[in-house]
């Protein structure tokens, strides 16, 4: 077809072709069609600009792709955004072209039509391009001082994803998502690519956070309560995502593994996302309760569709019988097809008819006039009037409906779909049984389960905790992985020796402890109302009374039990720096900490407060280790002493994650006061975090979170330079111990003072 220009051509078209003056043969092939579309939607000036800009794209040296895409897509973009959007877009492309990011032009143009449809206005489009521009400027590399030579690795990916992204989040949400990606992966090309192509887990998590609508994860408990409370059943919810599948939207369904629900629901027709979930659940529970599966082999697809519509209506009617308020909810969510929206001459209308019928079965004020519809509505209600009916009975009603209303056009390939989809209904796969067990996939599934990786389990599975990012004032979801394991064991006798060494100190402590010990019963005297007559006071009053003076009416006394109710968690920083020698001492900080902790544990055990000890260190956010030394249910015995004796220091200090993890144990303790003591020798830091403030701010945020949970945090810091940061984290709740040698003495004293 390359000789096409030589054939006859309308002079006007020839003029346009000359105006474009682009030598690519691929362009010549499509030019006429594109031009035809352009001529139908663009103004005269628009056509000029169109050709002029196509000419530029043709000559800019990026191959044929840009100009081809532009020629094909621009007319439709211009109809959504208006012709006047072109200069801004051209300007943006020019900027990309001048930067090393020429490669991103094609993905940008490719996604432009879809993006334009989502954004719908020039202002929004401008926001989007500004965002992309900022993105480009910040990620285009000048690594190691070579000025802007590396293209932004994430930008092309970003453009590819942008239609989907904008479908999920608003432009502000997109901004936050991009911001997060640039900040965290700005200097890591592969990760950046992963992030912007939505491959990495945190990229999805961040996006999830920015999404609009009601998330399933946020409401699982409510839905669980809903099933339990209203329907006396429970189920496992499995979310599926509506993403990527633009054409075939997945539909809720259930099987023996659980109920599959979309991961997010937007509000619709004044029905909140939560209520939409409830509607889906009510419908599914209805099926679980009242539907029995029937054989499908003998029915045609049309018959099956009709049976499904009738059965859906039946279980809903029964659910409404149980909870009449559901009718309102279902009606709001059920489409109301317009009676003559479907032309039976050209289109298959069965689906449309059934949707109308389904509406009529649900909504007494449906307003449809069709005689057959009314007849079957009546027959349905008659069937349901006195009983629950059954799937079989309703199936025969459905079959007679199909027979009665059959039309030749039902066989047409063109099916009327508009306004017929009832999106709170499941796909009814549970309704059908098949005689023929053909290529059954279940066999595969069962088989696959056995092949699970047989990894040896050491310690507990990781728990993920968010981390606070002070730059953006947001949490990074599931950022730090905490692995908990039992601390290895050593020789418990070592700890006993340490205690013997500090026997004198222990004796002094014991005296202080005795004072703290709860004296069970306390007498409260001088009470007007009390449990017993305080005879001494009563006699005195009586004498007063007899001698004419005003008697003291407070002649009773009562008893009060006073007790301590404090749960304590001691969190030990076991980072590498503990191996250093304490200044002016032969012992390392670790050894001194060991002595101090032993004494403290001994003292708390004497007091009888619930007490736990944990140690932590970290090697990047992927490996925060929490070492269990003593749990609340364990006694101060050889087992615990052994673990304490084996204490070792290594790696770094990711304090926030460890605090959050320790807090989840402390939180479950039943005590009036909850105290978390943190013994550390330096500021929070980790090898994968360049920004010093980041982990300090995160720890500070952790302190705030704990405070909200009713946990009092207190830091005992052994770093003489701690003043620079410790107050930022703990406010006033800290002590810096300069003379580390006195730690064994100071730690229990501090504890006693704190809990007095």
């Amino acid at each position, binding site marked *: 077809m390359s000789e096409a220009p030589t054939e006859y051509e309308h002079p006007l078209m020839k003029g346009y072709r000359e105006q474009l003056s682009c030598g690519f043969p691929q362009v010549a092939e499509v030019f006429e069609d594109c031009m035809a579309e352009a001529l139908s939607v663009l103004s005269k000036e628009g056509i000029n600009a169109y050709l002029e800009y196509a000419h530029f794209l043709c000559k800019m040296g990026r191959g044929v792709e840009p100009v081809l895409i532009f020629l094909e897509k621009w007319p439709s973009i211009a109809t959504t955004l208006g012709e006047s959007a072109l200069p801004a877009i051209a300007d943006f492309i020019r900027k990309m072209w001048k930067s090393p990011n020429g490669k991103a032009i094609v993905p940008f143009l490719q996604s432009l039509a879809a993006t334009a449809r989502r954004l719908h206005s020039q202002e929004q489009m401008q926001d989007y391009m500004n965002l992309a521009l900022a993105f480009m400027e910040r990620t285009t590399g000048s690594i190691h001082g070579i000025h802007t030579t590396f293209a932004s690795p994430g930008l092309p990916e970003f453009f590819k994803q942008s239609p989907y992204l904008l479908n999920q989040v608003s432009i502000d949400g997109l901004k936050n998502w991009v911001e997060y990606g640039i900040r965290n992966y700005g200097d890591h090309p592969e990760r950046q690519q992963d992030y912007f192509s939505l491959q990495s887990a945190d990229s999805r998590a961040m996006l999830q956070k920015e999404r609009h609508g009601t998330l399933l994860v946020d409401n699982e408990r*409510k839905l669980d*309560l809903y099933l*339990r*409370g209203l329907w006396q059943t429970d189920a496992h919810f499995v979310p599926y995502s509506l993403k990527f599948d633009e054409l075939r939207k997945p539909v809720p369904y259930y099987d023996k593994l659980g109920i599959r629900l979309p991961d997010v629901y937007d509000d619709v027709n004044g029905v909140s996302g939560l209520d939409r979930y*409830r509607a889906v659940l009510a419908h599914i529970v209805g099926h679980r309760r009242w539907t029995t599966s029937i054989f499908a082999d003998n029915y045609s697809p049309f018959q099956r569709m009709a049976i499904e519509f009738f059965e859906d209506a039946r279980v809903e009617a029964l659910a409404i019988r149980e909870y*009449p308020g559901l009718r309102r909810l279902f009606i709001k969510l059920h489409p109301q097809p317009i009676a003559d929206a479907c032309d039976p001459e050209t289109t298959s209308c069965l689906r449309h008819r059934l949707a109308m019928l389904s509406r009529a079965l649900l909504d007494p004020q449906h307003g449809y006039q069709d005689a057959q519809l009314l007849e079957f509505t009546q027959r349905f209600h008659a069937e349901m009037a006195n009983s629950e009916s059954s799937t079989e009975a309703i199936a025969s009603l459905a079959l007679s409906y199909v027979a009665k209303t059959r039309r030749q056009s039902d066989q047409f390939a063109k099916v009327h779909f508009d306004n017929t989809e009832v999106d709170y209904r499941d796909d009814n796969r549970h309704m059908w049984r098949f005689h023929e067990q053909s290529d059954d996939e279940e066999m595969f599934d069962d088989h696959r389960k056995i092949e699970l990786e047989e990894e040896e389990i050491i310690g507990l599975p990781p728990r993920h905790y968010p981390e606070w990012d002070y730059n953006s004032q947001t949490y990074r979801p599931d950022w730090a992985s905490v692995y908990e394991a039992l601390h290895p064991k050593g020789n418990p006798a070592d700890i006993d020796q340490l205690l013997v060494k500090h026997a004198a100190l222990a004796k002094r402590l014991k005296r202080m402890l005795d004072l703290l010990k709860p004296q069970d019963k306390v007498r409260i005297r001088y009470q007007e109302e009390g449990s017993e*007559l305080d005879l001494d006071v*009563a006699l005195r009053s009586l004498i007063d009374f007899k001698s004419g003076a005003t008697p003291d009416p407070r002649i009773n006394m009562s008893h009060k039990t006073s007790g301590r109710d404090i749960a304590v968690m001691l969190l030990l920083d076991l980072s590498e720096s503990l191996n250093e020698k304490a200044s002016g001492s032969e012992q390392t900080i670790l050894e001194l900490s060991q002595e101090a902790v032993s004494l403290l544990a001994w003292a708390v055990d004497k007091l009888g407060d619930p007490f736990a000890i944990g140690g932590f260190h970290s090697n990047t956010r992927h490996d925060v280790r929490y070492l269990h030394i003593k749990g609340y249910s364990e006694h101060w015995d050889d087992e615990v002493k052994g673990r304490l004796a084996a204490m070792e220091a290594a790696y770094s200090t990711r304090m926030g994650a460890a605090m959050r993890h320790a807090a989840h144990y402390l939180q479950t303790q039943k005590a009036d006061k909850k105290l978390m003591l943190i013994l550390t020798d330096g500021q929070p830091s980790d090898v994968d975090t360049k920004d010093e403030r980041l982990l300090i701010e995160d720890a500070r945020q952790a302190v705030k979170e704990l405070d909200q949970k009713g946990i009092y945090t207190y830091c005992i810091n052994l770093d003489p330079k701690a003043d620079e940061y410790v107050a930022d984290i703990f406010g006033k709740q800290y002590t810096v111990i300069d003379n580390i040698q006195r730690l064994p003495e100071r730690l229990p004293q501090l504890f006693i003072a704190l809990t007095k």
Partner: protein
Amino acid sequence: MTDKDQYKIRKEPFYQAQGKEVALYEAAYLARLPVMIKGPTGCGKSRFVEYMAWRLGKPLITVACNEDMTASDLVGRYILEANGTRWLDGPLTTAARIGAICYLDEIVEARQDTTVVIHPLTDHRRTLPLDKKGELIEAHPDFQMVISYNPGYQSLLKDLKQSTKQRFTAFEFDYPNAQLETGIVAKETGTDEALAAKLVKIGATARNLKGHGLDEGISTRLLVYAATLIKGGVEPRDACRMALVRPITDDADIRDTLDHAIDATFA
């Protein structure tokens, strides 16, 4: 002598039997065996005792137990008067003297050292020693001891001693089934059965959630409150929220679910 009649139940209280409890109680009373009634709050324990006292024609002395209650609150104490001190009988002593049914409501709320004072009255001795006064009271032949408690909030701290438990015969109460409960709510408040049935349905919703964030389901008593409010002209949904949901939970998720149940029930 104390006026016996003031403790008598004059009008028949409405009580709907759920099983054989009336006959069984009568048998226990005939032998003057102490009775313990267990069951969740608001399921009709106190009403049952009241009803039985009326049926047997015996006076009923009720004591609501609490943590601050001491033995002298039950037995009695010396109080001071112009001319010295005077002994004042406590409710338990009064009941033993006049031959009443002494009903200690929510006995676990009282401290264990308090509850032991009932021991001599609840075994073959049927006596009550008043050590401060130096008197030993023989219980009146009509005297009977009844205690109630709610095993729902049994904790390690709040439980009866075995020695106390094993002095009683026991009934286990629970919320009546839906049909009976509908009848009870309707009869107690005079509302129609349809409304009562709806309230009972909401009640059942909450009872299903027990242990999933609710310590206790909605009691029959609260259902009666709700019905009373509705009968007084309050919009049913508001009445249900006020009487059934807000009192029992501060948990937002559960509140939402129950509110939804109310909306779903009152279409």
